[in-house]
């Protein structure tokens, strides 16, 4: 636990700074009130709106740990959302609809995993294929329109609350905790890391790298399908055209801001979750600030760059270097003055 805290300390500091910045611009940002059934306030919104990116981030962290990348998660969201809405409007009931949607996500992950692990296509290209054609599949299901439904149970997943906490928040936190525990309480985490760092050596040591890779892409598909269900449930309709559009980039950003290396290996899901919160805080902050829309991207880009620079490993090394220089000079001075 202490180690995890130490590992994600820079991310926590960054989150605090971003929250402070937003609070300066919008003083009520941290105000939370209870309206009888649920907590409300901008910060609660952030926790709720982080759900898609955070969920995607859980899967993306694992994929990136294996030195891969999954560009198709936004599209998988659209597919799963479409499946869920289609199932519920054809009268299938909540459990069946959710199961079908998750099944679709798993299938998509299986497809990606096979292309990467068995056919040997580079992850970025393999998932680019699904990214392009998957949205077509989603539109095929909805026939290009927004498939609206009115089932209150499904809608609850997107906008209901549990003990006053928005359900999407509960869902992403629970998913993150369960996956993180699964990784660290079993040997999965280490095996994934080993595969990501050196697939050949891991395979020689008996790690079933192929199956592991497929499983990881399926996990990513699973998380994406949860995100897709949340997004669909949120607006009570499946928008195959826009659901999850470009969200894969935010998810990757969350993973990196969370301190994970894009080159695979060591990973931290907690870090990614904070990364997702940082991104959503920025997004919500931009919306609350009232700046004209055309400034959104520049503000986001500048903030992201600043965060990345602050978290850069080299900067840390430079600090150490400066410190050691100072130390060395002092030592020298001491040795020269007998």
């Amino acid at each position, binding site marked *: 636990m202490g180690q995890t805290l130490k590992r994600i300390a820079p991310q926590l500091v960054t989150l605090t700074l971003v929250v402070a910045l937003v609070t300066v611009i919008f003083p009520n940002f941290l105000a939370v009130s209870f309206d009888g059934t649920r907590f409300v306030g901008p910060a609660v919104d952030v926790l709720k709106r982080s759900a898609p990116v955070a969920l995607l981030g859980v899967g993306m962290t694992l994929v990136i740990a294996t030195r891969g990348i999954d560009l198709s998660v936004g599209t998988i969201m659209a597919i799963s959302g479409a499946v869920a809405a289609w199932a519920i409007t054809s009268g299938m009931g909540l459990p069946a609809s959710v199961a079908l949607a998750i099944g679709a996500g798993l299938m998509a992950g299986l497809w990606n995993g096979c292309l990467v692990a068995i056919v040997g296509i580079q992850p970025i290209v393999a998932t680019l294929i699904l990214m392009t054609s998957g949205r077509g599949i989603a539109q095929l299901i909805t026939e*290009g329109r927004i498939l609206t439904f009115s089932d209150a149970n499904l809608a609850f997943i997107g906008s209901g609350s549990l003990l006053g906490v928005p359900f999407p928040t509960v869902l992403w936190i629970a998913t993150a905790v369960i996956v993180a525990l699964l990784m660290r309480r079993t040997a999965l985490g280490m095996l994934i890391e080993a595969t990501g760092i050196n697939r050949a050596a891991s395979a020689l040591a008996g790690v079933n790298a192929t199956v592991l890779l497929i499983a990881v892409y399926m996990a990513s598909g699973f998380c994406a399908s949860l995100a897709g269900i949340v997004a669909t449930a949120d607006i009570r309709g499946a928008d195959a055209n826009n659901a999850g559009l470009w969200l894969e980039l935010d998810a990757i950003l969350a993973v990196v801001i969370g301190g994970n290396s894009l080159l695979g290996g060591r990973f931290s899901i907690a870090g990614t979750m904070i990364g997702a919160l940082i991104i959503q805080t920025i997004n919500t902050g931009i919306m609350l600030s009232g700046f004209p829309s055309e400034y959104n991207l520049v503000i986001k880009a500048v903030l992201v760059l600043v965060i990345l620079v602050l978290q850069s490993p080299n900067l840390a090394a430079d600090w150490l270097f400066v410190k050691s220089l100072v130390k060395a000079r002092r030592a020298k001075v001491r040795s020269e003055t007998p």
Partner: protein
Amino acid sequence: VGFSQIGSESGWRAAETTLTRQQAEERGYTLQFSDAQQRQENQIAAIRSFVAQGVDAILLAPVVATGWDAVLQEAKEAEIPVVLLDRQVDSSDDLYLTAVGSDLVHEGKVAGEWLASEVGDNNCRVVELQGTTGSSPAIDRAKGFRDGIAGKANIEIVRSQTGDFTRTLGKSVMESFLQAESGGKDICALYAHNDDMAIGAIQAIKEAGLKPGQDIKIVSIDAVPDIFQAMAAGEANATVELTPNMAGPAFDALEAFWKDGTEPSKFIQTESKLYTQADDPSGEYERRKDLGY
């Protein structure tokens, strides 16, 4: 006939495609359909392919207003008539046969005028959900709305932010509007650049414990089926129609042109009809729900 469609980014767009296909089929044309995935370069390439293929006419729903001179010139040299659908271009008008569409500024204006007459002399703080930043509907509908409320000092647009024409962003941006305007108490009306964003916003308003349509008046544009449902439930107040049937008038014009060379007028404007809760929303919903929206 070649048809270069922008893409399939919304239900309205899908309906336009469906209706164009239907119209072509009814009249016995072979439709060469090309989806440009929101990219002008794909549209230009598609038109040039149509020319290379030697189609008889080209329908073009341009993704953006500028940058068509060269390719339209090419079509003209190949003597293929081009009809613009739904959006305008700023090329010289001898490069195309005619343009069928509604006037985007006018749509915004109709919405603005409705709001102006609805609130009368009461003070009204309006929030605006804009379309995709930089897209011509977003720019023109924003402008038209401001024209519509011009001179009414009691109406003030207090916040505008892009919702990218999507329901998801419509909802989440509306949530932050509500947060920023003391839980929504200070907002009197919402103007959304399309119905989808309005529908998202309606959910946000409901979840915040307010009554959309009453506490916050809602006016939007497009007249897709779902907004009529909302109107029937009293949750939306007005919408301005943008008909997806652009192909019908386009084919009419083409047929006249082929028959005896009649040059149609350069702009065939479709109607921008205003629907309110008084206009039998449930009936309108039933009429539209199978049109491919």
